[in-house]
């Protein structure tokens, strides 16, 4: 029993130490990547390539997820609200929760799985095959060519994907509300319009930018920390670690940002 507790404590200690190290590394990398970005010393070609791969490439996924989420939310909420003859409020409810919470968080989680893992795996396999060292040996700064373009692309691209998710979610909700639940189209649109403020959309986009930053930075940190001595298995560990850490970071950051944004609006 005592031994189990000791092991548990040791595991918690290790977990905490790991989290602290991750935060330190992320902050350090963010500092350097943003430095490169602000002084325009980052590779433009790679930035565009990353936008194309991680952002444009994720668009179908994000649209499909948005459509499904919007549809499900209307089905679920209309079910409850119909009892009070208030079906049209479903549109308001869906609009608000979608724009403020679900779109940024779900887009973030999807991208953590899609882009965060790709970044960690790519940088990880470059590390174990000495390609990172080869870059350094050629006086090519990995921050400038590998990290900054990815961080910028995701920080700028994620807000757009969040808006795409919003849009697809409205469409999904509208289809279900109007076609299946018989809410009049005009009423549905009016309810949505009156529920939303511009600041809701901005808040969602802001969350998206923050999540994009976290996904790219955590992906890069994990990829760069891959241990060449352990080889391919460590690339697997880095990749999993990047997705898990980014997902948790997104949920924690979401809580913090939600509190902050609510404080602003009210």
């Amino acid at each position, binding site marked *: 029993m005592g031994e189990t507790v000791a092991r548990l404590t040791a595991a918690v200690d290790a977990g905490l130490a790991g989290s602290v190290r991750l935060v330190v590394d992320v902050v350090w990398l963010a500092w350097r990547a943003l430095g490169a970005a602000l002084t325009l010393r980052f590779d433009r070609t790679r930035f565009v390539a990353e936008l194309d791969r991680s952002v444009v490439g994720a668009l179908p996924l994000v649209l499909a997820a948005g459509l499904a989420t919007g549809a499900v939310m209307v089905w679920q909420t209309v079910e409850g609200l119909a009892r009070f003859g208030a079906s049209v409020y479903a549109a308001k409810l869906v609009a608000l929760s979608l724009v403020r919470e679900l779109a940024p968080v779900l887009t973030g989680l999807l991208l953590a799985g899609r882009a965060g893992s790709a970044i960690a795996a*790519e940088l990880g396999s470059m590390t174990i*095959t*000495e*390609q990172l*060292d*080869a*870059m*350094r*040996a*050629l*006086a*090519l*700064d990995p921050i400038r060519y590998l990290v900054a373009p990815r961080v910028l692309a995701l920080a700028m691209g994620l807000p757009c994907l969040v808006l795409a998710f919003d849009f697809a979610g409205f469409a999904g909700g509208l289809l279900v509300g109007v076609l299946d639940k018989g809410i009049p189209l005009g009423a549905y649109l009016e309810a949505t319009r009156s529920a939303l403020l511009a600041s809701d959309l901005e808040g969602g986009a802001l969350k998206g930018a923050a999540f994009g930053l976290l996904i790219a930075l955590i992906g890069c940190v994990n990829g760069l920390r891959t241990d060449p001595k352990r080889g391919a298995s460590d690339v697997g560990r880095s990749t999993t670690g990047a997705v898990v850490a980014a997902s948790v970071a997104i949920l924690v950051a979401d809580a913090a940002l939600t509190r902050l944004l609510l404080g602003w609006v009210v």
Partner: protein
Amino acid sequence: MRIEVSGLVVRYGEQAVLDGVELSVPEGGLHVILGGSGTGKSVLLRCLNGLERPAAGSVRVGEREVTKLSAGELGELRLDVGYVFQYSALFDSMSVFDNVAWAAREHRGLRGEALREEAQRCLTRVGLEELVESMDRMAPSALSGGRRKRVALARAMAMAPRVLLHDEPTSGLDPASARAIGTLIADLNRAEGITTVVVTHDLDLAAKLAHRISLLARGRFVFEGNAGELRDRTGDADVRRYLEGGD
């Protein structure tokens, strides 16, 4: 540029991989470092261009004390120091052309036709003129090991370096390719005056390149001289272990 190493110590945890290495290579010299597997040859080479930070000792390359350089100064040093990695370390998501041309584009400001010509020159210099035609399409992964080694050398050459560091230039090559690479290394050293350090466990290569040979064992050099002297030094336990190890 001359290379001057003294009292070099590299530790991983408790274990000292290098423990007091002394090395001196004059400007334009060619020095071969021999040693069995895992004796720290790659680690030593990595110290010469600052990829590894030693625990103690000094590494002078040209006028610079490598162990004391900032990140920016290391970048400047590396413009002069070409490094050819043991496993080539080519950028596998880029074409052969981009591999060779990247550094020249960034550091020497070459663009367009001038850049292509430089890449062609480097590929031709390492005996890969047949790749020039397809260099834009060819992926490094589609090349044989020997050609990858040559592309890696061409990539280092594109920096117009004054020092070249070769890590196991002949490992994994057939004897004919190995001889060709040996000839190329000697030729680059002689014709262009590039100060060269070659790390290898291949005694034939060492004998061919000759000039000076050091044998690395137990963290330091246990022999210095030419290949003939090394073969005769059978009374020395470290030399015997290396010669008989058949590595």
